[in-house]
């Protein structure tokens, strides 16, 4: 399959890239890892007149803790995030998620910034970042701004990014002691989008009482969903079997899936219930081991 013709741009600085994007407006798309955009272009679901390739921008691929946050550069490849020491040690939710994204070959090119900026509710990082309470740092021709993840996904394949903005960093708050997370995904085969998936990040305080709970849902709505009622039901309680059951039920009620080849509405909602309970149990176990 041959994509439509386009003009190819290779800016070497962020300033150059954002100026180009500001000038070209809706005619341009940012090319990052290209693992979603290029397949869409081959199917002619996307036919941008201009591609602004940001892979040559220096200093945007890194994973490090700094200033109370895990900072992930926008051009960080999923494989590098997966293999990062700090992620493997302290961010089990991110480590789980990376392993669930597409397949190992795709992860060698796919970027974390692109995974979010694509705005696909079937992508895996959105739910994870919702659960973690992340923040997206975007740079446009007007400068830099920080966008809380809760207000980042505005519609199907639509985000709060302006046409001239690039995701330069994703910031995840460093988890407190007693935190744990897990991502549980049901997929028909490696590389498939989730039938449904659930991201959980939980912090247990004194006496095992839940201080904070983040729950994100993948591919069960037109946007990635934050299961806020399920989260609220856990905070202030010991997450015993009854509390997990109740939260899982509330998460299922928050899901708004559509019927497709992967299953019916009822099936997917029930799947969210089951996966939420499993993700919670795993996250709690990890939190009890000290995160």
């Amino acid at each position: 399959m041959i994509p439509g013709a386009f003009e190819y741009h290779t800016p070497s600085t962020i300033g150059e890239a954002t100026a180009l994007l500001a000038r070209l407006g809706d005619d341009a798309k940012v090319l990052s890892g290209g693992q979603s955009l290029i397949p869409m272009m081959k199917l002619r679901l996307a036919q941008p007149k201009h591609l602004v390739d940001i892979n040559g921008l220096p200093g945007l691929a890194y994973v490090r803790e700094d200033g109370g946050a895990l900072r992930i550069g926008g051009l960080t490849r999923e494989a590098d995030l997966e293999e990062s020491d700090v992620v493997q040690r302290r961010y089990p939710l991110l480590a789980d998620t990376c392993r669930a994204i597409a397949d190992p070959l795709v992860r060698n090119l796919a970027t974390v910034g692109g995974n979010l900026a694509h705005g696909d509710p079937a992508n895996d990082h959105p739910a994870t970042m919702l659960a973690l309470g992340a923040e997206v740092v975007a740079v446009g021709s007007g400068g830099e701004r920080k966008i809380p993840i809760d207000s980042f996904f505005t519609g199907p394949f639509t985000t709060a990014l302006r046409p001239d903005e690039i995701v330069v960093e994703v910031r995840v708050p460093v988890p407190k002691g007693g935190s744990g997370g897990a991502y549980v995904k049901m997929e028909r085969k490696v590389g498939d989008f989730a039938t449904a998936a659930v991201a959980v990040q939980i912090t247990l305080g004194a006496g095992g009482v839940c201080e904070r709970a983040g729950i994100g849902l993948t591919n069960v709505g037109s946007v990635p969903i934050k299961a806020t009622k399920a989260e609220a039901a856990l905070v202030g309680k010991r997450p015993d079997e009854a509390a997990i059951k109740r939260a899982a039920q509330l998460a299922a009620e928050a899901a708004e899936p559509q019927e497709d080849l992967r299953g019916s509405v009822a099936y997917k909602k029930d799947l969210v219930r089951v996966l939420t309970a499993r993700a919670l149990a795993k996250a709690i176990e990890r939190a009890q081991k000290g995160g």
Partner: protein
Amino acid sequence: MLVKVAINGEKHEADVEPRLLLVHLIRETLRLTGTHIGCDTTHCGACTVLLDGRPIKSCTMFAVQAHGREITTVEGLEQDGKLHPLQESFMSEHGLQCGYCTPGMLMTSVAFLKKNPKPTEDEIRWAISGNLCRCTGYVNIVKAIQHAAATMQGGA
């Protein structure tokens, strides 16, 4: 648009349309037909090549993106008339039937064994999970990779 790439250590130049996919540059412009095109939808991994040492799907990258980079294809595995231990192992362990997925399997495995010279079966299965085989059921492919790992450990 001029694209300069090094493939298997040899420098190549071509004037291409930006929309040309890397796999088409490799197969059609440069006539290195060892790299296969399977699904053309980023699923099967038949088109896997190494980009600066990392396995990627060459149907999901534009040729112009490879400008200035180093690419290794299956033709680059043989050295001085001697097959790579993985190629030998795929033969001796019957790691292929129709052979369509083999170039991709080999390129993924080459990069994987460099990173993880003593893998478990589970790690091998994870590593090749982006490469589809419709003949073997993977059993002999896994055996071939295990065999190659052992051979390479033996200092061959």
